């Protein structure tokens, strides 16, 4: 297990975006010149689809302005200059009743790595959650904050219980990756709640429901192949539970809440240490002198993080938040680490992919690699011509944005970019009347095509 370093140097200033989640932007609770403490709430929004924002350092608010955000767009942010003289509060464990857990989560500003505030996932308005899944299949989040695998496994299980409590769900599962033997061995044989845990593989039609029954337990640990992509929630839900999510819906519509290890840990800390979500583990890789996993304060600019990792090697050509396959390229290294930042990847100028795209040669390599049976080449052509309705009928909304199609294309077509273009246009067009009824019979991402 890779060791997580803690970033020691205090950054010159931290930039805390007032919106680090999908939903409404927070109103600043401070103004220029105010002194703030570490952990102090500095932004809040009354509406349910929002998560509070806290200061990650003690210091002085130097400005509240539109600043770069790792999502690519500029967002209203609080810029704080750390200073020694600000007094600090100690965090105290909180004893909260179950009914208050969701509010605690919102208040602690816990957000899933994919952007949705965690309380929205656990307690969606008007929906019931019966199963909570902790997704530990993505390498970046495993082991963050924990010193040993055993500590990690029991804490995650505790966190899962908390999540289930918060959601009012009866069942929960931790989903590991088949090739992450370290974690598997950490869970295997673990005694939890008087039961021995066995890590069970998800194969074929043997979904998690089978293991709940087979092991006569409400909490199971399962493992599956690594799937990746930005929009894997629906696919993940289907692969793990067999439930299909229809167009315009999300897993909560079929009673499934998906949390990351990271938010599970944050909830654990919020309850057991009273600590809001102010620091996160970021794995820094690529062309930096000392690639590592590093615990940083939210709001730390990328350049300070990279500095802490020894700085760039040579001239950097591309700075990517969240990984080389699905991440967002940044145009400046002044962007801050936000709650949804999991990694920073640096490419040198020569490594930047700039293949000029030529016409699609219908080689079908993209078709062969697509994990959700799409025909990316055709979707691309349709998207390029603005024929979004036909894209929709070809299940474009199923795309998990894994980028494999674009990676293998010999014509260097910007396949994924075009697909996302079409998806965003379709979403815009359907915003107003998305069919929000939930059903387990609907096909995964079935978008009215049939």
């Amino acid at each position: 297990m890779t060791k997580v370093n803690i970033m020691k140097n205090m950054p010159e200033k931290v930039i805390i975006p007032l919106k680090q989640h999908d939903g409404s932007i927070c109103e600043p609770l401070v103004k220029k010149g105010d002194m703030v403490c570490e952990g102090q709430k500095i932004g809040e929004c009354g509406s349910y689809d929002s998560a509070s924002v806290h200061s990650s350092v003690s210091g002085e608010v130097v400005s509240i302005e539109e600043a770069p955000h790792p999502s690519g767009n500029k967002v209203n942010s609080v810029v704080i200059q750390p200073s020694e003289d600000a007094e600090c509060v100690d965090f105290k464990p909180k004893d909260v009743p179950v009914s208050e857990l969701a509010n605690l989560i919102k208040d602690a500003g816990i957000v899933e790595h994919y952007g949705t505030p965690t309380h929205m996932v656990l307690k969606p308005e008007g929906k019931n959650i019966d199963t909570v899944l902790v997704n530990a299949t993505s390498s970046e989040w495993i082991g963050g904050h924990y010193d040993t695998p055993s500590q990690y496994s029991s804490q995650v299980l505790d966190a899962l219980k908390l999540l289930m409590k918060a959601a009012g769900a009866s069942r929960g599962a931790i989903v590991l990756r088949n090739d992450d033997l370290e974690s598997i061995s950490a869970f295997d044989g673990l005694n939890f709640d008087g039961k021995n845990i066995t890590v069970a593989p998800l194969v074929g039609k043997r979904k998690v429901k089978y293991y709940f029954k087979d092991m006569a337990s409400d909490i199971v640990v399962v493992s599956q192949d690594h799937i990746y992509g930005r929009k894997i929630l629906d696919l993940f839900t289907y692969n793990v539970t067999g439930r299909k999510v229809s167009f315009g819906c999300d897993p909560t519509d079929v009673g499934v809440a998906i949390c990351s290890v990271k938010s599970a840990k944050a909830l654990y800390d919020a309850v057991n240490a009273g600590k809001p979500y102010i620091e996160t583990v970021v794995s820094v890789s690529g062309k930096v002198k000392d690639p590592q996993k590093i615990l940083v304060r939210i709001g730390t600019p990328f350049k300070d993080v990279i500095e802490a990792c020894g700085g760039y090697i040579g001239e950097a050509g591309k700075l990517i938040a969240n990984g080389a396959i699905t991440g967002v390229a940044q145009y400046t290294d002044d962007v801050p680490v936000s709650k949804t930042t999991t990694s920073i990847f640096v490419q040198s100028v020569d490594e930047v992919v700039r293949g000029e795209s030529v016409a699609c040669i219908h080689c079908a390599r993209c078709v062969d690699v697509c994990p959700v049976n799409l025909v990316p080449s055709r979707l691309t052509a349709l998207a390029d011509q603005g024929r979004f309705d036909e894209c929709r009928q070809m299940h474009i909304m199923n795309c998990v944005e894994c980028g494999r199609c674009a990676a293998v294309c010999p014509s260097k077509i910007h396949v994924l970019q075009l697909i996302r273009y079409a998806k965003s246009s379709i979403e815009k067009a359907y915003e107003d009347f998305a069919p929000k009824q939930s059903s387990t019979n609907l096909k995964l991402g079935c978008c009215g095509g049939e």
Partner: protein
Amino acid sequence: MTLTTLLIQAMATLGGLGLVIGIMLIAASKLFKVETNPLVEEVVEVLPGANCGACGFAGCADFAERVVNENAPLDGCPVGGFETVKEIGGILGQEVSEAEKEYPYLRCNGGIHCVDRFDYVGIEDCTAVIMLSDGEKGCNYGCMGRGTCVRACPFDAITIGEDRLPIVNKNLCKSCGLCIEACPNEVLMFAKDSEKVHVQCNSHDKGKAVKAVCEIGCIGCKICEKNCPEEAITVTKFLAEIDQDKCTACGICVEKCPQKCIEIK
């Protein structure tokens, strides 16, 4: 066989055939009657048939139906031009008068004069660039020059020029406005040929911010506003706007503008 018998037989045969067919067709037309408005079909006839949707309806036939049955405006089809409007008017018995033709006008002269914040690799499309980050150009209001409008135009009327700004070929443009709709930054607008003077900038940023990213952007200095003898110019939110009804195309503002961002055609 004599000519007479042949004649009679032939006439009887074909006449009988005609009779049978006539009766059959009339019967069928009664049996399978479908109500159609002949006016609609006439209007469809005169429409250009491009089915481009510029009228805002689902194709030419739909537009025709709306014009006839739901009083949609006669000049709803921008593609057909005045000829079509006149013909529709003729069919529906309405008087029409010709409006002056409008063409898309680009309110930005940035192009290569405006700095790029980064180096973009991806599909040639302004909306796509904006999806990735707020846009490639230093100015968030200006033209991206990635040609979303070019792709939107069904008549191939727009090309991107040397200076990375779109050029509209007025011979090909049918004033359908699809490009204007498509532009993510709303820098295109309709302008009549008779409107001679235009501000070539769309930036509402403060003067300093404009100067930092663009050599020729409007900085909102109000010199033009003060100098215009017709009081046709107002500067709102750091951007000059010309009231075309008042403008006499005297050209004074063009001369006075320190940034040279007012154009006279």
